[in-house]
């Protein structure tokens, strides 16, 4: 059967910056319980969605650095070059069906467990882990902010190398960047806190 013409609009290609999605169906980032631990299962699952017609298929939260680890909840990871191969399994599967692949780069801050890496998580202030783990974060200084930006940049470049067409900046769900935006959690007195312009600075 042919498509009902009243749905044609859903199948219009959409330009997103330098790339074009084949239609208006967009699988937003979502967790899967697979992430970096089960890359093949994950790649096939995302590939099936592309086959099913979704114009954009995204990863789950994709950690940019070992200080952002959420086990036992499994994120994807782009910590170093060795992660590219696992991520490329997914982008290849998605591209095979003409869809775009998106990577949701993620830094958890006070909401990440770091139970596997044992690293101290950074956030705006020294605060208890909000997921209930018996660890506190440490407050970020300006150098930490510079490092974080560098980690984001490095991970974005790795995402590009892995074949992603869309790279996310993730500022919601009480992870680090959203904590910077939030007037309740962001009590900094420097240029990253205070006015909305200041609170948005890091996301920008």
């Amino acid at each position, binding site marked *: 059967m042919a498509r009902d013409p009243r749905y044609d609009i859903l199948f219009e290609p959409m330009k997103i910056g330098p790339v074009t999605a084949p239609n208006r169906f967009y699988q937003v980032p979502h967790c899967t319980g697979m992430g*970096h*631990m089960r*890359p093949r299962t994950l790649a096939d699952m995302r590939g099936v969605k592309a086959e099913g017609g979704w114009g954009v298929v995204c990863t789950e939260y994709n950690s940019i650095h*070992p200080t952002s680890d959420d*086990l*036992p909840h499994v994120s994807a990871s782009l*910590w*170093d070059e*060795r*992660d590219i*191969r*696992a991520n490329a399994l997914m982008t290849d599967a998605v591209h095979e069906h003409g869809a775009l692949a998106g990577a949701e780069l993620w830094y958890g801050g006070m909401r990440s*467990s770091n*139970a*596997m*890496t*044992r690293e*101290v*998580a950074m956030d705006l202030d*020294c*605060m*208890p*882990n*909000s997921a*209930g*783990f*018996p*660890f*506190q*974060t*440490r407050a970020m200084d300006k150098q930490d902010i510079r490092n974080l930006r560098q980690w984001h940049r490095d991970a974005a470049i790795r995402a590009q190398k892995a074949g992603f067409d869309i790279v996310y900046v993730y500022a919601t769900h009480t992870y680090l960047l959203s904590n910077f935006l939030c007037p*309740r*959690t962001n009590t900094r007195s420097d240029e990253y806190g205070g006015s909305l312009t200041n609170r948005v600075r890091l996301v920008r």
Partner: protein
Amino acid sequence: MARDPRYDILFEPVKIGPITARNRFYQVPHCNGMGRAYPSSVAQMRRVKAEGGWAVICTEEADIHPTGESSPHNEGRIWDDADIPALARLTDGVHEFGSLAGIELAYPGMAAGNLYSREIPWGPSHLPAGHGDPVQARAISKTEIKQLRQWHVDAALRAKKAGFDVVYVYAGHQLSILMHFLSRERNHRTDEYGGSLENRARLLREVLQDTKEAVGDTCAVALRFAVDECEGIHGIACDAEGRDLVEMLAELPDLWDVNVSDWDNDSQTSRFSEEGFQDSYTAFVKSVTSKPVVGVGRYTSPDKMVSLIKNGHLDFIGAARPSIADPFLPVKIEQGRIEDIRECIGCNICVSGDMQSVPMRCTQNPTMGEEWRRGWHPENIAAKTSDDSVLIIGAGPAGLEAARALGQRGYDVTLADRADQVGGRLARERLLPGLNAWGRVVDYRQYQISQMPNVNLYLGSDMDAAGVAEFGADHVVIATGARWCNSGIGRSTPAPVRIDKGMTVLTPDDIMAGVKPPSGRVLIYDDDHYYMGGVLAEKLRNDGYEVTLATPAPIVSQWTTNTLEQGRIQTRMIELGVRIIPLHSLDEIDDDDAHLECVYTEAARRVPCSSVVMVTMRRPEEALYDALVAQGVASLTRIGDALAPGTIAAAVWSGHRYARELGEDLGTAVPFKRELPALSSSF
């Protein structure tokens, strides 16, 4: 140094069926949060224990079939031949040191929800399965019983192929279908597998016989059996069916590995039980079997071990936690280095790894779980790379461990603390009810550094920035710890709460320093959720106060579910008469009461009290660090709670890591090897 002759008995070889263990130190099966997901890490962790002298090293539970799998917990797996190479890596490492490798074949039945395989769990009867998962186990048919027996045989043969010397039949911890068949409460069958103990034990007997037939010519077949479920007449008890079963199967296995069940009874913490807490349950076993017996009880004292053997209680000294805290415990006894034993403190932070499905860690042994991925060894550490000197301010868990490990590397270390004793937070916390054994973290390290001429300890030394500069060390380490806050800020309350001046508000630090709350009711507000809130309630109740414990969590000391302590803590609170108000956060405090708020409805509730103890969060002690940053110091590092308040385990690890990494080129990449990328060469 030579071994003290009174310990000779611990080093006698012991025959187990067709094989011989080189001594009496036996690492019983234990989970580790790594299992099948981190095979290289597990193999190296077990290998290090063999190097440390344990004669028998066992795996964690190894699931034999997809219809019984322990996900999300990272246990072992021996489903088909594809699992053999990973397991062979473990047996090879263990054999390298002349030890025997054992595998605990497991079929969890209704103890697992099969979340990964999506298979329907099997059981003796129709019963809910898993840990609160919406899954039910199915009563299996006699044909399926035959299949189950065959899977055990197949797994045993695979285990032999993978190089194991000891093959387990597992009927413990209520984590095995064999135990579910044994259980009067769970086994409702009316055929020859249900009813009498003889019938309920039929499957266990058959699996034992099958396993012996399959691999018994070259492998020892061990039975791990919980002789008591600590459920009185509702469960197996050591003076009833527990004993009957051992008598019934006495000579069938080559070895009896006996303990109590469930896991929270088997792995009791030092807060609730002493070394040897299982002795009264397992003492009878040797009297009814001629086969060797291994038992556990957090044994760390060599004299206790000797008496267990001499009194005819055990043939092997079983250990899980003591072998985690000190993988080299046997070697240290053999070499006459009793003082060097890093004794388990019985805190169960190791258990929390398995509970959360992440690699296990240990408070006493910071190298646990790091043997493969970071190349850390519990006894060896690289020599220093320069003649630099290090000044460490703060002799708590982090500072002590940094000093010890840097001292071992050969660095010149000065450790200073303004207090008159070492220990930092532990000097205070070890005095709290039930936490005395935690002091071993301090005692071990204090002794070790006392033996090092290159480590100097200065107590009562309150250094300021000028003093640090004057001292002139090449590297300055800030290990000044953290203090509890009294503002009310914490997980549930990001902003300070309003507090009227008339109310006495105290912190755990105040209570530990001996401050007495005014007479009347004390409200403990626990937004921390680990042990501190509950332990202070116990202390203040013991001191005669009326105590109310309010927490936003649904249960007392919620995170201690991960250390298997929560049930005991809440029971104790109830028995002590502590009033518990769960699911309430703190809103504000008046002169004579506190206003709580229901976490769901925001309904207000007033609790009259004459003092409030805030167990919410801690602030790092960073005044000295900030002053040194302002002053400028070439090499300045914070470790432990001064960097980010956390567990004692995290503080010790932080200090150890600093010592490992000083002067080493770490690069900028991920600071450890990862299992999947490492295995991906076979992609």
